[in-house]
């Protein structure tokens, strides 16, 4: 395991070195990129709980990412125009407070995951992939055709939302905030993975008949994991919207679901530091190769093919070797 810890430390050090360099070199754009990587990593931490531990190949996690994004967009847009979201039966006002927005984002995406999960987890394999994809697309088209919140054009939020005690407009402070949220989510994923629940969930992925034989329902384990997973990805969506100060239906797009999945696979399915490594690599490639060619995704595709064919454990799995507990 010590090799695994060394690799994880190296990944962490590398990811922290970039913002520190950006800060002292005076390159705020690099800091924005690092923040983007951290937020995508958070979305992938969410997916990794469902995919890595539960074996649930969800191609619809953009649904939760988008719900988180729109939770932020709706609350903040009402706050900036001073119009209530609803005045009957209860007066609900918008807000620019991140903790409130995060809570709303997590509760709504969790509820959505409960409904989507309860319906789609009755299937498995390719049908599960298709149903989750279909739910994601449903929300995508709904967002496009919902004129109240910008429809296809999306919603701009002029000033980044606030967090008590911080000035979130300072790039370094916003980066530190997102990094702290990511660290908390990773700690949660770590604890969950080692818990009795994590053990049963991992067992249900590998040998569902065995789990039934010890008196536990794989469906309920998977649904619980799917809801936790959706909540974390939803929180990432709210942060992503705040980073861009913009929400649009593309947050619901299946390309985004694919991107989150690519991050998990590149980094290492089921590995604690996989999402971070994968997101850092993806954002770097996007930046570096994007400057070289407009068709940079071709190279990404080749890399992904290489990982899937020759390095099943992704970056972390290849460097750190097999881990028994899927920690």
């Amino acid at each position: 395991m010590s090799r695994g810890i060394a690799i994880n430390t190296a990944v962490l050090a590398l990811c922290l070195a970039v913002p520190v360099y950006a800060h002292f070199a005076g390159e705020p754009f690099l800091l924005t990129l690092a923040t983007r990587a951290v937020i995508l990593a958070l979305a992938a931490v969410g997916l990794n709980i469902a995919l890595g531990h539960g074996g649930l190949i969800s191609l619809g996690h953009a649904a939760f990412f988008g719900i988180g994004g729109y939770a932020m967009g709706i609350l903040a847009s009402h706050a900036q125009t001073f119009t209530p979201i609803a005045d009957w039966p209860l007066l609900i006002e918008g807000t620019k407070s991140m903790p409130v927005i995060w809570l709303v984002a997590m509760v709504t995406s969790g509820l959505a995951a409960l409904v989507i999960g309860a319906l789609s987890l009755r299937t498995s394999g390719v049908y599960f992939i298709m149903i989750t994809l279909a739910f994601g697309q449903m929300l995508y088209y709904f967002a496009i055709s919902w004129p109240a919140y910008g429809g296809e054009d999306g919603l701009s939020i002029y000033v980044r939302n606030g967090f008590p005690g911080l000035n979130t407009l300072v790039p370094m402070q916003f980066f530190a905030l997102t990094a702290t949220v990511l660290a908390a989510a990773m700690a949660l994923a770590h604890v969950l993975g080692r818990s009795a629940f994590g053990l049963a969930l991992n067992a249900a992925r590998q040998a569902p008949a065995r789990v039934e034989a010890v008196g536990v329902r794989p469906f309920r384990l998977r649904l619980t994991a799917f809801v936790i997973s959706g909540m974390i990805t939803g929180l990432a969506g709210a942060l992503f919207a705040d980073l861009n100060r913009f929400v649009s239906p593309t947050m619901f797009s299946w390309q985004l679901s694919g991107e989150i999945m690519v991050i998990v696979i590149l980094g290492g399915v089921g590995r604690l530091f996989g999402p971070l490594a994968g997101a850092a690599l993806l954002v770097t490639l996007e930046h570096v190769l994007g400057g070289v060619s407009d068709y940079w995704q071709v190279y990404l595709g080749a890399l992904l093919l290489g990982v899937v064919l020759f390095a099943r454990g992704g970056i972390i799995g290849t460097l750190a070797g097999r881990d028994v507990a899927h920690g």
Partner: protein
Amino acid sequence: MAEPVLQVQGITRAFGALVASDNVSLDLREGEIHALIGPNGAGKSTLIALISGALAPDAGQIRFNGRDVTALDTVARARLGLGRSFQISAVVPEFTVLQNVVLAAQGAAGHSYRLFRPALKDRSATSSARAQIARVGLEARAAIPAADLAHGERRRLELAMALALKPKAFLLDEPMAGLGADGTAQMTTLLETLKAEAPILLVEHDMDAVFRLADRISVLDYGRIIATGSVEEIRQDPEVRRAYLGADA
């Protein structure tokens, strides 16, 4: 006499025109090993699936521990104390021996929804798991992933998992399958000590083991039970000899 632990009454299950279980009745009493034998295709697997809850019967009733469990599924029956092993080992391949048995122990204890406490630090689950691992003689292999175990060891791991459930009855589907002579001898000794804990319904092809272990034997042929009795009665039964055992038994 007390009610049998497990009672199968007139159970029938057809797949299209094929009646895989035809009005089968049998029971399992406290303290016994009841062996279920029969040629390939006789309906043993179907019967096991019906008893474990993986299949629903077309007709008939299954009572377990004084309760009608016919309408319950596998999970609910496992929770009531029906511990089973599988014909093809169904252990969790990436888990170590210890993790596999802890999974069973926490399942039995109803702790599988504890989200925060580390599973392998839960004393009550691990100490009971280690005790079962010791009983099947796998102490030295506790930290080995199940995928790396030899076949015979994996069969014993299955048994340790069934034991960790602290079941009220065991349903063992060919525990000797694929074991060598040594392995079979070990397993036989192990099963002999097991029946004191809970009665065993044993599906097995190895006749030497069956004749040595069983208190009663039921013979299944074409989905029907053609005989039930003690080892001696079954050995002497002309219909059983014709259908299954052959003249030399």
